[in-house]
């Protein structure tokens, strides 16, 4: 039987993050400009499979996706215990910079979704010189809690069931069911308390107020794209962000909070022009 082999290769490496050794898993494909992709809270790098398989993108870009510590095939840091995981802004930035330095990537493009779409704003504020461009998917400057995130980690509720249920609703009803199911499945496979721990960054520590005004688009170009069905980071909130920075945002039709995995075909129509511009 002939199999359809994909161009993706997987790797493990030890990276020092805030003085602690972390065993990180990453996947990559393609050659050219490094494009580091950041997955959403409570999920992992599998969300970017479509990009890692897209021949057009792989001709110009080296697409690299790592699983954050605690996520996917990356291990929790040494001496971890269940229930104490909280992603802070500083820790998230350290993870990204350690990964980029470890792979000796020079001026990569970084694209992040959701929490990744938030952290690229922090990168733009503090380290614009390090990046060729930054792409925010589902970016918002802040998010006030609209449901009790304690439900995401309770011993009397199956974490996979509730995290999957939360993620499912964030997708567009028009996205293909098989892609929605797989996107939800990634959430169902997350470890206890990890999604909740990520949301500490998304809903509290990583909120940005007036600091957004410090972003200088001339130092590092920023692109913002948001799916219309996202009620977590809404297009309206991305527009406020874009207006403050002084750039245009793109509202993506027929997708929700996970454009790259819930409806890659639709998403790529919006991403190609951005990547063409950057290259």
């Amino acid at each position, binding site marked *: 039987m002939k199999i359809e082999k994909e161009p993706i290769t997987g790797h493990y490496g030890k990276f020092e993050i805030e003085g602690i050794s972390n065993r990180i898993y990453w996947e990559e494909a393609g050659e050219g400009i490094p494009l580091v992709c950041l997955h959403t809270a409570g999920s992992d790098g599998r969300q970017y499979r479509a990009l890692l398989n897209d021949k057009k993108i792989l001709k110009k870009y080296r697409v690299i996706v790592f699983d954050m510590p605690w996520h996917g095939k990356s291990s929790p840091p040494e001496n971890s215990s269940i229930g104490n995981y909280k992603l802070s802004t500083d820790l998230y930035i350290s993870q990204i910079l350690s990964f980029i330095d470890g792979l000796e990537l020079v001026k990569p493009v970084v694209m992040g979704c959701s929490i990744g779409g938030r952290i690229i704003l922090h990168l733009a504020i503090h380290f614009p010189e390090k990046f060729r461009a930054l792409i925010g998917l589902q970016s918002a400057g802040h998010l006030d809690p*609209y*449901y009790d995130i304690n*439900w995401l980690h309770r011993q*009397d*509720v*199956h974490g996979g*069931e*509730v995290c*999957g*249920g*939360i993620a*499912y*609703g*964030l997708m*567009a*009803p*028009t996205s293909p*069911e098989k892609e929605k*199911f797989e996107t*939800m499945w990634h959430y169902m496979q997350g470890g206890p308390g990890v999604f909740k721990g990520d949301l500490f960054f998304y809903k509290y520590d990583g909120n940005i107020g007036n600091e957004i005004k410090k972003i200088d688009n001339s130092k590092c170009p920023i692109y913002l794209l948001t799916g*219309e*069905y*996202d*009620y*977590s980071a*809404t297009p309206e909130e991305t527009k406020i962000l874009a207006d403050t920075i002084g750039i245009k945002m793109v509202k993506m039709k027929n997708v929700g909070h996970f454009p790259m995995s819930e409806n890659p075909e639709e998403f790529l129509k919006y991403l190609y022009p951005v990547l063409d511009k950057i290259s």
Partner: protein
Amino acid sequence: MFMKLVEKDERRKSLSAMAGYLNTSFMISTIDTEYLVNIEKGMVTSVQEGPFIMPSYVFKLTASKDEWLKFLQPIPLPGSHDIIALLRRKVMQFDGDLHPLMSHLLYFKLLLASLRPTEVKSEN
């Protein structure tokens, strides 16, 4: 509006596999009208339309009739496509003991979505 939940079509039968240990009663409120839904082993066994004198239920989902109608469209618009989206817009309220709801969140989302006319093909 919600009486059809008791009809055992293929979608709802398949949903019961996600909630085999779920036995609960919950109220759906459109503010003007209330519907008391009883679930046994993941199957809706009865739906009663109010008014009620002393209804007994575990949790309640409340939104205006207009918001429920938007939610029940074949392809709902952004912000009306999910009960948490309604919560986010502050047009829905969850009350009571939410454990059955949150521990079977996807089940309840799909159960309610099964009332959408053309949702048949795109949902499980």
